[in-house]
């Protein structure tokens, strides 16, 4: 007589409970901007960029070919993926609300996808759970999903593509291929990094290799079609920041804007050492880790992808530490407690900093003042991280911008701007200001605290005191607006 197990319901209840817990914690953290920034403007620069572009499309009822504000006028060479998606969704909902809600929803989706992807890769349920928990607490994840960024859509899209790639069935695999093929519309690195990981995963798996080759050929072809005309026309890939600027983003605890927690890295070492014992069987995680470290040095957003594997390795490390035989139980318990505190500390530090992130109310006031004192054709100089706010709030042109893809002579422009910012030669600075037809210079507190200058007498700050060409029009809350007299 066959017995039907009466324990059938239990595993799925446990799974649901774990998932619900992950979603609940994720929601609490991802909703933090809403309660930490009450009566404050939307956090970050990218939401303002997308807001401006969507409004532009709605006004003109067509996709623009030219952006008159960025770089004082440039071709519309932005990633169309997020723009198209936001535009379609904004038909029924206000764009501002969308920019707040989408990151939260996609963040939760990312967590769910990460969990099920790990399960599909036959990871231990504990490892899947802990990996996703560490992911939620990581500054990188919180950075990507507490405000709308390029990665807000690219990451869940990549994870969905991976998850479906791992499926045994035909239809999910086709959908996966389609998703990979549309990645180029979300960015260059947002395509290259997932393809590289997919390539490494497919090693020693002939069937996966065949699919990978097909997907990568089509995806790369799409990327070439998107970018090549612009490269040929402008002769430029874009402004490539120094590697050292990206290194600081790998670790959050020592000053990175996002990045991994140092305690996660320590745990990842333990996880790695565990895998090292069967290094030839576990070579894929090693190769993925090395590849992602290299990408982190090349691209600011690489650190966010790196974070995923770090969380996985850290979870293995944590499990290893907790399951291994300790000589002293007290040492074990306190050590594990310390590690958990460290991990939570990093996440909470990031959340704690949300309230003070730019733009502030004072900045918005100053940008409105900039709009009122200037004219629509005036070109504004500021650090590139301020450009999105100047474009959207003050509705003015900026000479430089964070989005540098396919800008003609972009290296020369940045070089000139660097001279304007750092030279104490009054004549040289005035000449360059005139050359680029800059009418106003907008200075924020963070520019004077290390973003551009380290001291009050450096470069432009020195020149502004003695140049007869410059006139201070606004100074409040350490924000300054300087006008260049013609």
């Amino acid at each position, binding site marked *: 007589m066959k017995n039907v197990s009466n324990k059938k319901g239990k595993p799925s209840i446990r799974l649901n409970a774990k998932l619900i817990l992950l979603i609940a914690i994720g929601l609490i953290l991802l909703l933090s901007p809403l309660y930490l920034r009450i009566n404050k403007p939307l956090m970050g620069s990218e939401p303002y960029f997308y807001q401006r572009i969507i409004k532009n499309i709605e006004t003109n009822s067509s996709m623009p070919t030219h952006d008159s504000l960025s770089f004082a006028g440039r071709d519309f060479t932005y990633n169309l993926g997020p723009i198209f998606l936001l535009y379609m969704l904004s038909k029924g909902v206000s764009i501002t609300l969308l920019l707040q809600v989408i990151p939260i929803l996609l963040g939760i989706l990312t967590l769910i996808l990460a969990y099920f992807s790990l399960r599909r890769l036959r990871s231990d349920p504990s490892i899947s759970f802990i990996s996703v928990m560490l992911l939620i607490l990581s500054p990188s994840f919180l950075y990507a999903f507490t405000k709308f960024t390029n990665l807000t859509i690219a990451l869940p899209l990549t994870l969905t593509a991976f998850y479906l790639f791992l499926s045994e069935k035909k239809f999910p695999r086709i959908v996966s291929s389609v998703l990979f093929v549309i990645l180029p519309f979300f960015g260059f690195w947002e395509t290259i990094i997932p393809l590289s990981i997919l390539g490494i995963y497919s090693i020693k798996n002939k069937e996966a290799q065949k699919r990978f080759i097909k997907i990568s050929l089509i995806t790369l072809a799409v990327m070439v079609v998107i970018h090549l005309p612009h490269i040929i026309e402008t002769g430029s890939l874009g402004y490539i920041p120094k590697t050292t600027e990206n290194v600081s983003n790998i670790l959050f605890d020592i000053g990175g804007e996002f990045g991994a927690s140092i305690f996660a890295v320590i745990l990842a070492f333990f996880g790695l050492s565990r895998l090292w014992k069967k290094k030839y069987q576990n070579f894929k995680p090693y190769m993925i880790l090395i590849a992602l470290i290299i990408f982190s040095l090349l691209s600011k957003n690489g650190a966010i992808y790196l974070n995923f594997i770090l969380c996985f390795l850290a979870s293995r490390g944590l499990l290893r530490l907790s399951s291994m035989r*300790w000589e002293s139980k007290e040492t074990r318990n306190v050590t594990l407690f*310390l590690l958990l505190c460290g991990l939570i500390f990093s996440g909470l530090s990031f959340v704690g900093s949300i309230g003070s992130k730019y733009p502030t109310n004072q900045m918005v006031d100053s940008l409105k003042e900039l709009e009122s004192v200037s004219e629509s054709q005036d070109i504004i100089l500021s650090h590139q991280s301020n450009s999105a706010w100047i474009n959207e709030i003050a509705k003015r042109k900026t000479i430089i911008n964070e989005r540098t893809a396919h800008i003609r002579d972009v290296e020369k422009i940045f070089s000139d701007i660097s001279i304007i910012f750092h030279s104490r030669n009054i004549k040289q600075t005035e000449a360059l200001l005139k050359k680029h037809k800059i009418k106003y210079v907008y200075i924020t507190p963070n520019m004077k605290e*290390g973003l551009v200058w380290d001291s009050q007498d450096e470069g432009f700050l020195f020149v502004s005191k003695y140049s007869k060409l410059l006139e201070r029009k606004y100074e409040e809350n350490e924000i300054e607006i300087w006008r260049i007299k013609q």
Partner: protein
Amino acid sequence: MKKKLNYILIIIFVLTLLMRLFFALSHPEFSGDESYLHLRIISHIKQSGFPMTYDPLSYGGRTFLYPQLFHYLMLPFSLIPILLKIILAISASTIVLITYVISKEITGKKGVSLITALLSAFIPIEIQTNVNKLSVYSIILPLILLMFYFLMKIEKKRYLLYFMIISFILPLLHPISFLIVFSFLFYMIISATESIELTKLKKEAMIFSALLITLLNFLMFKKGLIRDGFSIVKSNISSTLIEASQIEFNIIQYLYLLGIIPLILGIIGIYIGIFKKKNENIILLSSSLLSIITLMILNVLEIGAGALLLSPFLIIISSLTLDRLSEYIKITKFHKLRKYFITILVLMVLLFSVIPSVITAVTSSRQSQEIEDLEWLSQNVNENTTIVSIPEQGNLITGITNCKNVVDSNYILAPDLEERLNDVFYIYNTWSESKALQLLEKYDVDYILFTKKAKQKYGINKLTYTENEKCFKQERETLYKVKC
């Protein structure tokens, strides 16, 4: 015999304590710049009950980031100032006892350990740093040595507990606790390369300690790390300014303060301990030496602080050299002259350690002219006065006069640090009166403190622009009033 050796140890301890107390109590005030910083923090805690998080006087007003457990511990003793001096002298003197027990643990010999203890009683750099000074190193050094001792004996449960307690206390006292993390890292690496198997308990204890120290330091210095990143550890000073801001050492002075005997015997001890005997305890102590040297090379640790930390470790390691020497003499023809060798050794210790220590104690505990001048100034100015000095004397200004300074030696989160250090450099070195006045006006300076130390630092004898009596007046030997 056993009792005799114990009495000798107590005599050494009492001698060093008496020497410290003699020099400390012969002056009513503390000497040294940092003493006044600590006094001010203790005073703040006494008034408010809370740690100081904002300093209105340093750099004209700045966020203050400094571990303050030391100040809470000193608070009860500060009610009677003489008690502060006594307790710190006792604490610093315990290095003798701790050195003895660690040496005994390494060599198993009481006689050799006694000589090592004698060496540790008279370390010139340690005397210079701690005698008549309100210095956190009076507590830090003994604690670090104890920590290493407990790690050596970690197999016993009570030592594990003590080790864990010190791991918690150390980061709350001083960021030098990070040294422990590097030491343990080097220890594990060197042990692995020398194929020495460390016990599981030892590894667990080290991992626990490293994590705890890292976490506590991150918690305390979070603001600084987020603002300045890893450069907070390097003090974020450009290479040209490092030369201007650190106390200059020449090699002879360095050897004098470090001690020639510990240096030579210590190096030999490292060779014997690592390459000949593969002694686990020597490897542990050598790892800390390696981490100190690494931090000095990376400019994270100043030269003076590096010498202070190197010396006790070198002395303890030299116990192995002395032990080998003693064993060697026993098997040679000279074994009958063993007592004479000991006598010569003690005389050498006297010549190269005791006498330099006493001389250092005399010079470093001496009340300097600037303290008198500043005490006079404190009676004649109001709280809104700003006084400029070299960074190494900034805390004297705030501590004695309760006035603002332009720069001091607390660089973490200091506002406009490079600019201020640069400007102070020009104030002391420029010959242009207008340039000097411009910079003095920038910081609203009312007085310039021009001391012997400033003269030595910049290699100048006078401030040429102060000859203009319309704008400057020499109020005291080291004080110039800015009248314009």
